[in-house]
């Protein structure tokens, strides 16, 4: 959890994020995102959240990105979109301005937040981030949220089926 791996990995993460945004081909974009997720999973490991790291890989990389790939492949909407060139000038300008503003804001906020978190990581029990502890917190303090998440997933499932189902007219 030292600075070197952190910087290395953040460079990887940021690079692949930029690749995703700037990539003309959607599938390649998806793969870049997968790599980004892997990098973030490693970050989670560095931050002592093994369970979440593995879940991240399983859920994000394993399920969500597969969904993306599925849709990309099913619809085969390859290359409709040109690169950044033909976008309306104004849209890019706005996006750029807002992006810079956001960055500036984060730049300002980061040191403030630092005060919050403190330079040193807090002393933490050995099995911090282990499934046992996560499970305990999840089902003791946030059971209601868990149930609600369950409902959201149920609703999403039904929604997806209804929306995408080919109308057998």
């Amino acid at each position: 959890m030292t600075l070197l791996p952190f910087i290395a990995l953040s460079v990887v993460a940021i690079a692949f994020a930029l690749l995703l945004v700037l990539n003309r081909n959607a599938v390649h974009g998806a793969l870049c995102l997968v790599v980004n997720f892997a990098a973030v999973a490693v970050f989670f490991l560095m931050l002592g959240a093994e369970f979440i790291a593995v879940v991240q890989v399983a859920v994000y990389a394993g399920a969500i990105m597969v969904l993306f790939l599925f849709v990309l492949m099913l619809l085969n909407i390859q290359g409709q979109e040109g690169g950044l060139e033909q976008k309306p000038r104004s849209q890019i300008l706005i996006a750029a301005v807002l992006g810079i503003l956001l960055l500036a804001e984060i730049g300002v906020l980061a040191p403030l937040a630092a005060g919050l978190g403190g330079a040193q990581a807090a002393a933490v029990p050995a099995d911090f981030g282990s499934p046992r502890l996560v499970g305990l917190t999840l089902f003791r303090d946030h059971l209601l949220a868990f149930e609600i998440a369950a409902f959201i997933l149920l609703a999403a499932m039904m929604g997806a089926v209804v929306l995408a189902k080919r109308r057998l007219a």
Partner: protein
Amino acid sequence: MAWNAPVPFASWVMLSGVLFSIGAVGFLIRKDPIIMFMCIELMLNAGNLLFIAAARYLGIMAGQVFVFFVMAVAAAEVAVGLAIIVAIFRTKSTIDVDEMSGMRG
């Protein structure tokens, strides 16, 4: 800065901030809704990162549990989003965001 010095919390905020803004800008720039969805996932992930970092630096498990919920929501969102895109593609044979302004006032 010694290479093996511990990583301050501020840098985690910076990192997730950068990732978030890349996602946001990406969302604004691209016209292909799938890319936009990916950018959203990226933003959500940046959020998760910050959650975990904060959990680690404050020693509170709740952070990680929240990430769990964020993932649930993200999954749900992608499922529905992609279903919509499939539906739109099937009707209009194009999924360019700018054409899809049927719902205007």
